[in-house]
């Protein structure tokens, strides 16, 4: 340990450069993970944290709430299927809010079965002109008591629910009749309020996936999905995951290569000293230990600083990126990078282990 620390102190500049590089790579990784998490939750939250056990879409919508339109008679047809305890209509549309920069998604609910599972603050709407608001960390926030004007109609936020938004936008859960009113006002009365999907509660003790399958088989032109499948099949979430996975992969490779090559070169440069150490009685462990200690110190410090910087930057830019570090993801990523650092040092360790003390007397010319 003594040698490991002495060497770091003697070559502080080089070790600081590596710590800096690892730190920046960790910052990028954690930043990507946080933003990807916020985006994915902004897309899937409305379904993932919904009350309904099963959601029934138009069969051609591929589970996309924005593309799904059903016949008004679908609610009764779905409600008549064996295993369905109740079925209710849901309408969805994107609307502009007067005076606000961003659009909102309005979800019209025939009853609360189709709403978010949890209300974090306030209550659910129970009168015309009331709304339960779910904001995403990437969209403009609204608080209880705020009044939003959409198509000339005012909605007062009476409750707030986290992580139940659609389309990475602020989402207002209102009564179906209010939704119908704003939709018809926008279209100048030419379009009926659309039925976007049907929310289903299944009988006690039944498996939602089984009931969903039964609904799909029984009712024509629809696709029923249990809540978890519906959230996983939402378009966009998969694309985000794939795109960011590519970046994670590249960053993990760069961390491994940079750390591995640095310690390999360092080992090659001190080959003579290592031979001497072995020649005067140092064991293999005596020469391997400093390398491992240095890897843990350098990568560990890089990770710690990276976590601190990424956390600080995300906190400072919360209005823009709307995300903060998830402790579980941060710990897993940090551990993985540390493991990769140790893995990357295997080349250097192999080189250290191959040191033959006899070279001290022959200059390495003995075969």
């Amino acid at each position, binding site marked *: 340990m003594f040698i490991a620390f002495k060497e770091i102190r003697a070559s502080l*500049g*080089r070790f600081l*450069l*590596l710590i*800096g*590089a690892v730190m*920046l*790579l960790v*910052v*990028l990784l954690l*930043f990507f993970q946080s*933003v990807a998490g916020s985006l994915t939750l902004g897309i899937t939250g409305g379904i993932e944290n919904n009350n309904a056990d099963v959601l029934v879409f138009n069969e*051609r*919508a*591929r589970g*996309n709430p*924005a*593309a*799904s*339109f*059903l016949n008004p008679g679908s609610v009764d047809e779905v409600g008549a299927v064996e295993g369905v305890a109740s079925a209710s209509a849901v*309408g*969805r*549309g*994107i609307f*502009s809010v007067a005076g606000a*920069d*961003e*659009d909102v998604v309005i979800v019209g609910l025939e009853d609360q079965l189709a709403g978010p599972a949890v209300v974090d603050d306030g209550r659910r709407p129970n009168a015309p002109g009331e709304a339960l608001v779910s904001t995403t960390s990437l969209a403009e926030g609204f608080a209880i008591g705020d009044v939003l004007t959409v198509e000339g109609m005012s909605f007062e936020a009476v409750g707030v629910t986290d992580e139940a938004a659609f389309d990475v936008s602020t989402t207002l859960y209102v009564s179906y009749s209010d939704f119908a009113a704003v*939709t018809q006002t*926008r*279209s*100048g*009365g*030419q*379009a*009926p*309020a*659309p039925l976007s999907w049907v929310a289903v509660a299944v009988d006690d003790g039944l498996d939602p996936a089984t009931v969903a399958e039964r609904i799909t088989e029984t009712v024509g032109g629809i*696709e029923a999905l249990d809540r978890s499948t519906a959230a996983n099949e939402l*378009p966009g979430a998969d*694309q985000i995951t*794939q*795109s960011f996975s*590519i*970046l994670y992969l*590249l*960053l993990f*490779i*760069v961390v491994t*290569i*940079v750390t591995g*090559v*640095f310690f*390999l*070169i*360092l080992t090659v*440069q001190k080959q003579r000293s290592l031979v001497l150490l072995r020649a005067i009685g140092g064991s293999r462990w005596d020469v391997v230990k400093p390398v491992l200690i240095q890897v843990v110190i350098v990568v560990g410090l890089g990770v710690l600083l990276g976590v601190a910087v990424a956390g600080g930057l995300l906190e400072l830019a919360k209005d*823009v*990126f709307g995300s903060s570090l998830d402790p579980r993801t941060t710990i897993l990523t940090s551990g993985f990078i540390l493991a990769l650092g140790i893995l990357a040092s295997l080349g250097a360790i192999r080189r250290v282990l191959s040191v033959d003390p006899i070279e001290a007397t022959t200059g390495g010319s003995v075969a």
Partner: protein
Amino acid sequence: MSIALKELLRQPLRFLPVAGALTLLVVLLVVLGGFLDGLEMSQTGAYRAHDDSVIVFDDGAKRQLQRSRVGVEADSILAAQDGVARVGRLDATFTVAGLLGAANDELEDVVLFGYDLSTAVLPDPPPAGSVVVDRQLARVIDIDVGDQLALGPTAQPLTITALVDDLTNAAPSLWVGSDQWQQLVAAANPAALLPDGFHQALVVQPSSGDAETLAATLSQADLDGLDPVTSEQAIGALDVVQQQSSTFSGIIGVTFIITLLVIALFFALITLERVSLYAVLKAIGARTSELLAGVSVQAVGISIGALAVGFALSLAFVALLPPELPIRLEPSRLLQIAVGTIVTAVLGSLFTARRLLRIDPASAIG
């Protein structure tokens, strides 16, 4: 300098580790740049297809197509302005489409545009029952001119008359005449219908001169409630695009700093190996600036090699990615990355200047 070059050419293995690390960083930069351009271009195709026109929004819409509502009476007001050749309508809505008769899991999200005017990119609006299709859709599902698409939940049949490049606008786009758009939306996405006599935007084409001049002229005219802008200004108003652009530009900047640190690190290690050789060179009259020039030449050489291999790897890597991922490799971006990498590598190599300056020629003789 010639010694440095000869060393690079005769002992390339010595530089392999730094070249390998730099190659990976180049791949990372290219992929990040690809996402930056891909995300921006895949969300702005419809606007860029109107580069030669002025787009007119309502002035409360903050230049967002989906928020804008322009009354049809604005058509005649705009047509009467100086420098205006033609005025047309522009509307958009999201829905799904797939080959007629294809399974439901082969449908794709699309954005359906209604338009009146051809541009340098867009052909004349197709006749009723036909559609002009963004070629991106043909990359995701197997379609060609003459095939029939089924649009929306009601599977309205549309025959493809043309495939056009670079029209993606958040999703692959389909283009039909404005009158047909109204009928299709009533069936495919009734919640997106606007009141009779309203459209999301109008497109104005200049009789002479460019769109920028016409936009400026119209802005100065007394057009109550209208906001005439160029396609570039409309893109500039898209918050999502601007945020993505600034975020990815920042990330690319951080990646260049990592590149700088990695190059500095490896040249510090390489220089350490050669302290005695540099001392000899200094003892026989070489100046520090010459040694620094040599190190810089090696950094440039390594960068060029890493760029060549990195670009080739990136092209192969991107070709393997699913076509729906928004990644585009643009020559201008590759040039920026090449110049940035070389400059960063030279700067990184100059981190060794302090050590080179401290080498005492006398140490060559012990």
